[in-house]
Each structure stands twice: as C-alpha cells, then as structure tokens.
C-alpha cells in the first residue's frame, strides 16, 4: 500500500500543484469577471457580493444604450476590416506564394513592421495624419487602422495557404484547358479557402479586441466594445466592464474552436516559409 502511495501519488503532487496554479491563473480572473457581472452591491471587506441580480445586464442590453451601439460598431468595423484585409491578402498571398518575387522575405517582414514599434507612438502619429485627411473619428479611419494590424496575419496565413496548394493540380487545370484566372478561381482558391477562412477569423478577432488604434483615431465619435470597457472601468463601473468583457469573450472562444478545424498542419507548417 505504501509502495503504491510512493510510486503513484507522490510524483503527481508537484504536477497537481502546477496544474492548480495554471488553472487559478486562467480561471481566477474569469471567475472574478462572472462574479462582477451579476453583482448588484459589493464592497470591501466582503468576500462575495452582497446582492445579486440582472440590473446591469438590463442596462447593457437597453435597445438604445451605449453598449448595444458599441457592439454594433465593433461588429461592423470588424466585418469591413476582414473585407479590406482579404482584398489585399488574397492577391498578395498568392503572389508571395507562387511568383518568384525578389525581396520576398523583406515584403513579408514589412507587414510585420507596424507590430514592431510601440503602438502608442505609432497611433498618435497616425491619428495626426488621419486628422489632416479628415479620417479621424470616422469608421473608415478605424477600419484602416485595424486593417494594418490584421494584415500581418492575413497575408502570412494566406501565403502559407497558397503555398500548401499542390502546383501539379494547377498545372493539371491549365493542361485541361483552364486559363490562368480560371485555374485560380476553380482550383487554387477553393483549395486555399480553409486557410483563408482562418485568416479572416483571426482578422475579425483582432479587430474586435483592438483598443489603442481605435482610441487614438476613433474617439470620440466611434466607440467600440473595448473602448466602452475602458470607459466603464475608468468610471469604476465594474459591472458594465465585466459584462462587456464577457460579450467580447464569446466570439473569441467560439472562433478559436472553429479555427482549430480549419487550419491544418500542412498550412501551419508553411507560415513564414
């Protein structure tokens, strides 16, 4: 009995502690979020809320409330960001994967550049420039800022998706009488579509969560979910902030599960190649 104890249970103790810590790090804040979302009255030194209820949910989902407006804004901006990103990423990804472009890796890195500098510094200047063009505080301005951030993923994943398409299949289509354009739309694009869907979802999520760029370019006219969340937290309204976070969490988790099905290993292996 003691032998079994020593050989089976003892080695598991450090692992159990480690797993427990991980679980706490991930689920602790989430639990706090859930508590705050349903707390009506909660103040120090009480460990749990004093009164529970749906009052704040009603406030958030009020038809003409700020929250619904910003949710709408977020989704509309995310959809347009996806459209603009794909319109650039599909031709760019195809060209990077199939043509022998000079400076290929430099081009790929160029898409990464906006991420390499401190975003606050970048977006203050972007905001200043956009102001000059009348783009500050407009949907178009915010969509452009989101697109710059989304493009890195869109272009890199699209390039990988096109690289993973077997060239022999394209040659076979050409050989069977399809023109270059037709080959692209009947063979290459359908085969790369799962990877492109995945990149669209990434861009959608990035746009949904984007804060810094929206803050500098969109305020005060374009308020998205993350901005609402920020405002609510700054005002100490943790209930509204928590409910907003939960709303932002739903598409993220949902799409992540979705992406796992779309992005196959052979595509992932070609990212950045």
């Amino acid at each position, binding site marked *: 009995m003691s032998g079994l104890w020593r050989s089976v249970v003892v080695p598991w103790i450090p692992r159990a502690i480690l797993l427990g810590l991980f679980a706490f790090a991930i689920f602790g804040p989430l639990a706090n979020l859930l508590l705050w979302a349903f707390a009506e009255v909660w103040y120090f030194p009480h460990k749990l809320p004093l009164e529970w209820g749906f009052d704040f949910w009603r406030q958030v989902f009020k038809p003409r409330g700020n929250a619904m407006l910003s949710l709408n804004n977020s989704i509309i901006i995310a959809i347009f960001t996806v459209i603009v990103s794909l319109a650039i990423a599909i031709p760019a990804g195809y060209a990077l994967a199939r043509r022998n472009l000079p400076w290929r890796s430099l081009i790929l890195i160029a898409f990464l550049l906006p991420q390499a500098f401190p975003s606050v510094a970048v977006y203050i200047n972007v905001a200043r420039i956009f102001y000059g063009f009348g783009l500050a505080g407009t949907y178009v301005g915010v969509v452009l800022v989101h697109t710059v951030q989304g493009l890195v993923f869109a272009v890199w994943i699209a390039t990988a998706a096109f690289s993973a398409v077997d060239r022999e*299949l394209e040659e*076979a*289509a050409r050989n*069977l*009488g*399809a023109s270059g354009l037709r080959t692209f739309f009947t063979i290459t694009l359908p*085969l790369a579509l799962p990877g492109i869907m995945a990149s669209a979802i990434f861009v959608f999520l990035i746009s949904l969560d984007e804060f810094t760029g929206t803050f500098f370019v969109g305020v005060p006219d374009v308020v998205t979910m993350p901005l609402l969340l920020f405002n609510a937290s700054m005002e100490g309204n943790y209930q509204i902030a928590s409910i907003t976070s939960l709303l932002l969490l739903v598409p993220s988790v949902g799409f992540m599960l979705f992406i796992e099905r779309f992005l196959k290993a052979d595509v992932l292996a070609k990212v950045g190649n």
Partner: protein
Amino acid sequence: MRKTFADFVAVDDVDLAIPSGSFFSILGPSGCGKTTLLRMIAGFLQPTSGDILIKGRSVLDVPPNKRAVNMVFQHLALFPMMNVAENVGYGLRRRGMPREDVAKKVEDALARVGLPGSGTKRISQISGGQKQRVAIARCLVLDPDVLLLDEPLGALDLKLREHMKVELKKLQHEFETTFIYITHDQSEALVMSDRVAVMNAGRFEQVGPAQELYYQPKTIFVAEFVGDSNKWRGRVAAIEQNRVTVTTAQSGRICGVAAGPCSIGDDVEVFVRPEAVALSRDGSTLQNMANQMDGEVVSVLFNGAASRLLVRARETGDEIDVALPQTGEFNDLQAGQSVSFGWSDAQTKCFVIG
C-alpha cells in the same frame, strides 16, 4: 529541340517524329531530361531553341491551356475537392459545353475506362488503380491529339502495375490517340510501346521498336540499361568481317559481333544476355556454339519462370548469369555441380569504349 537551365543542359538536341496514333515511350534513368521534354510538349516549359510541331503546326506560341495535348501527371493531380464526374468533366466545362452533354460524355468516358456509374464517388474513396483510370478518362474525354503520361504507374503496387500496363495498351488501341509515355521502368516501355526512345543525359541514345533495342542495342548505355547482361571488358585480338575475337582481362577468349566499326587493339565491352547462354550437362549440345566453357554452379536463384543460375567458368573464374531453361531438364541442378555452357557469337555484342 534543346533546353538549358542556367548552366545545365537538360535536353540536348533531341529530334524525333512520332507517328500519329502510336504508343511512344521515352525510357531513361531519373534525371535524364525526360520530364523536361514532356513538360515542353505540354507547354509548361519553353524550349531554349528548336520547335515542337503537332499535326504539322508549331505550338511554341500556344499556351498550355490551348494545346490539344493532355497530360496524366506523375501523382495524377486529381482535384480532391471534386468528385469523379466533376474531375472528368472539368475540361469539358471549361470549353463551355452544356451541362447535359458534359454529363453524357463523362459517363461515356468512365464506362470506357471500366468505371461506369462511379461519377458521384469522392476521389478519396477510390483505389489507386481507379484513380489512374479517372486521370486517363479526364484527359481522353477531351479527345486530345497527344496524351502525355509521366510515369503514372510508379505509385502502384507490382500486381496492379502489371495489370495497368495491359490496360493502358488496350486503351490506346481503343482511343487511337498518340500516347507519349515516359518511364524509368524498362518493362513498362517494352511491353506497351510501338517505339521506344532510350534517353540518357539529355540525348536520345537509340530510338526503335522494343525488339530492336533489346536485340540490337547501338550503344553501351542501351545494352546496359535495357534488359540484363553479362559484361566483360577486353581488347580486340582478331577481326574477320564483322566477327571479332576479344581477349578479356582474365585471359579468356570470347567471339562476338562488333556493334560498330572497330580495329585490332581497341578496348571493348562485351555483352551477353543471360537467356542467350545454353546449358548442357556434357557439352554435347554445344558443338556449334562459338563460345564454350566448362564450369560449376555457384548458386541457383530460383524465381519460377525467371529463375537464374550463377555459374563460374573453370578456366577464367568469371561468374556468369544464366537463365535457367524451364524445359524440366535442369530442374535438379544444385550448387557445386559441374555444367557446360555456351552461346553463339551472333548473341555476343562488342562495343568500342569511348
């Protein structure tokens, strides 16, 4: 026709004419330029110099999708997101043929390659041999002037490969289309083709019917590459018309015929096919053979109809591959027994080296 890549000559001054409706094979080791040649015919590569004529017209300016040439790719290149019928009908739809006509022609083509009614199957659901036939049907349904086949049997297992060889030949006969088949497998080329070109290092070594390549090889490469041979190196000791006597390094003497002009003192390679060597227990049946030797059996490599004997000549110590005659007479031969063997000088080919 010539094709160079940077500083590498892949296809070097190849010139050939293929009669319409025939089965033509290009046989060569990997890297000999045969795939490059095929891709130039299909239009995926442009020749550096030279011309390609199909039915008398140059196709150099014709893009691959406009050439009346279809190709069965090495890995078949069936479209995985389409079913069998959609694959076969792809080219017809590109031509803008009405839907009903496409369906009819596709079903007709599938029936002709022995796959009636499998149009709705997914590509992942059918076997290797069936995929092969779908790939061929996808090309033949377009009624091409030339069908190119790029080692399409390579991925199949041995039994299926044997079966598909016969099948392909039958299909070619039925459709009366010109087939250009490239392979590194000599038995595929010999069995199926009307004519075979043996290719080496970007050049054609010899072009001719299978029998000619096998019985009258013109170069050392062809003699070595097509079929099996016993090989000696030696020096020409005597010449009488085109019959030569060669002294080998082991001081044996072999009588044969020269494949080209040669003179006394030339270094030569001598080739004798294992099935050209006759066996005898006492030497009595070898009386009129130009080359006769006594020896003993080193080992019996039994493989049914393709069984071989390895015998060692007593005088020179040469080890010689001999096809075991399946007449029943030698079924009890065992290692260590002594035998006599011989072959005629007409069956002995001598090639001058260099």
